[in-house]
């Protein structure tokens, strides 16, 4: 597959068309109807949550949030294939994959509400925290890959970055190191066409992002990232390659960020309605749901009902997050060192002294 779809051939791997019709049944991944349906429901849950979070943000109940809207198939396919033993190294638009690894929606809420606990992932193993400095996490993925190879484990690393991130030095170093070390890492570029306002053509003069793999001696492929089956099949093949010790793999998942970069961003400044409408026709959820409807596995009625359920579940977890206890002054000094140095203890003490003074001051003033 990686020969046929060598990025030099300039073909994007696709399995279903925009109407959800299978283009070539030989390309289909190994997936049962039940699993396909589950994947769709999970993607729908992620989208429901995502849209709801933007509403919470508008209501002032959560701070800046980077939506996943329109990119759900990439995380969706990762969610299908990733196992407990595998590592997930996210950027910040991989909600579906994170939920599949056991991160809770509540934790994601906590993070975007401004609690560090949102990155603690209490019930999820082998997931790195969300990485804000663009592309820096990819080197960690390569390092994890080294450990897997060193200890001869049968594990994989799924590492994410955006199109903008491919311009950072860390991206190139990570893929280069991984290529030299031949480690089992699947790098997934979510090419959603924009780094904030900057279109991909300003990030690179390359024909594609997948083609960058060639220079590092790494297998690459460009995949329709809005095609759940194509993503899953590409990941299946990538997994086989890695398991043979022939990794890493670089996957460019071509998609579109239907929402804003973050809730602080206004895309009307830099892109047109026409462009948005053209991409809307390729919406990943609509394509998969059409496929399922054609097989009588799904209906609008079912969708409506389940979305209502999902909204309630999202709300439930959101309210739980809203009721998270407030931080006490001492909380901000935690987790800096294995053991807190005296210097920090002293600083914590000085903050406590200040609060004692302030409370007296404020109560004196209110007595007046």
């Amino acid at each position, binding site marked *: 597959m990686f020969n046929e779809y060598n990025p030099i051939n300039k073909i994007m791997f696709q399995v279903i068309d925009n109407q959800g019709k299978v283009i070539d049944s030989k390309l289909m991944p190994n997936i049962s109807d039940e699993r396909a349906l589950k994947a769709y429901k999970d993607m729908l849950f992620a989208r429901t949550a995502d849209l709801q979070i933007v509403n919470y943000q508008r209501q002032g109940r959560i701070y800046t949030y980077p939506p996943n809207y329109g990119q759900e198939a990439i995380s969706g396919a990762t969610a299908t294939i990733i196992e407990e033993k595998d590592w997930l190294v996210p950027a910040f638009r991989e909600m579906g994959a994170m939920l599949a690894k056991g991160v809770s929606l509540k934790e994601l809420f906590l993070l975007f509400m401004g609690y560090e606990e949102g990155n603690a992932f209490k019930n999820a193993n082998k997931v790195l925290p969300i990485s804000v400095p663009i592309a820096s996490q990819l080197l960690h993925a390569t390092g994890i890959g080294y450990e897997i190879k060193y200890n001869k484990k049968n594990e994989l690393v799924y590492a994410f970055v955006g199109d903008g991130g491919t311009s950072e030095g860390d991206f190139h170093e990570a893929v280069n190191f991984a290529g030299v070390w031949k480690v089992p890492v699947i790098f997934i570029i979510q090419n959603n066409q924009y780094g904030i306002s*900057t279109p991909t053509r300003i990030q690179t003069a390359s024909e594609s992002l997948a083609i960058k793999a060639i220079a590092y001696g790494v297998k690459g492929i460009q995949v329709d990232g809005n095609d759940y089956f194509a993503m899953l099949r590409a990941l299946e093949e990538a997994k086989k390659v890695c398991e043979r010790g022939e990794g890493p793999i670089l996957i460019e998942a071509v998609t579109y960020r239907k929402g804003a970069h973050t809730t602080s961003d206004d895309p009307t400044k830099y892109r047109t309605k026409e462009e948005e409408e053209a991409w809307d026709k390729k919406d990943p959820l609509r394509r998969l749901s059409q496929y399922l409807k054609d097989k009588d596995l799904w209906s609008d009625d079912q969708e409506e009902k389940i979305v209502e359920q999902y909204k309630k579940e999202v709300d439930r977890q959101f309210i739980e997050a809203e009721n998270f206890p407030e931080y006490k002054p001492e909380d901000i000094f935690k987790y800096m060192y294995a053991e807190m140095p005296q210097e920090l203890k002293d600083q914590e003490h000085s903050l406590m002294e200040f609060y004692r003074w302030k409370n007296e001051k404020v109560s004196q003033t209110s007595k007046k």
Partner: protein
Amino acid sequence: MNLVGAINDALDIKLNEDKNVIVFGQDVGVEGGVFRVTENLQKKYGKERVFDSPLAESGIVGTAIGMSVAGLRPVVEMQFSGFVYPAMNQIISHASRMRNRSRGKLETPMVIRMPYGGGINALEHHSESMEALFGHIPGLKVIAPSTPHDAKGMLISAIESNDTILYMEPKRIYRAIKQEVKEGKYTIELGKANVVSPGKDITVVTFGAMVREVQKAMVMAKELGISVELIDLRSIYPIDRETIRNSIKKTGRILTVTEGPKSFGLGAEISQIAIEEAFLYLEAPPARVSGYDIIVPLPKGEHHYMQDAYKILYEIERNVKY
């Protein structure tokens, strides 16, 4: 005019009068910057002079060094100061050394603009104030305005300077302060502090967004009968020793207010200056309000970290009572 407008005005003036001035960075072109600081400049001056770069801080600063060595005057933007670290290699290894290394033959006249500081309920890496880190780099000048008037004059001076200037923008007050700003071109001498308001009991030295917090504390201090002399540093490196010395000679006390971590911070540097320059005038140990030696907390814990008027008043009171 607010701070955003004043910085935009300064860029506009220099782009207009000097064709060697080039403005680039992430999202500064079409979008006009995530904070709209470079709004309309691409429309006005074209894509060759104001443009979006690939997403790579090291790339932005490194290419700006090349441009400046060759005779251009680039003004580049780091989207947030918390993202400058990939560019630190270029800043420390090249921008700050090129003149010295080439024995004066090569210069890097460029400005690196970057919004800094906390108090805006931001994600991780969006709230740091690392002036001490930058001030510790020999060969680099580090400045930070606190008002729209200063922002404009200081940026014009920075662009005209033949040194590499790190221009820290207090994003927390980007739109919080409005004032009349002189039309047209004016400059503010770099390296000179500004005595914002004279006082007699204690000198408070600060810069950027903290000037406003000190002013709030001063109102409360006044009710307690304490008269504060407020110095806005404007320039972190070089530091205006003379203004600090003269003020201590008058007040006998000094407090610094900074947002960055406490240890090895700007407050420590200024305290030492106080000791060196005015030891015999000091009536109390130089004091500081700063951050703590921790990661700036996310919004739910940030208020414990931040230096508000009460924290400043607390230290003023302690110092005066000493």
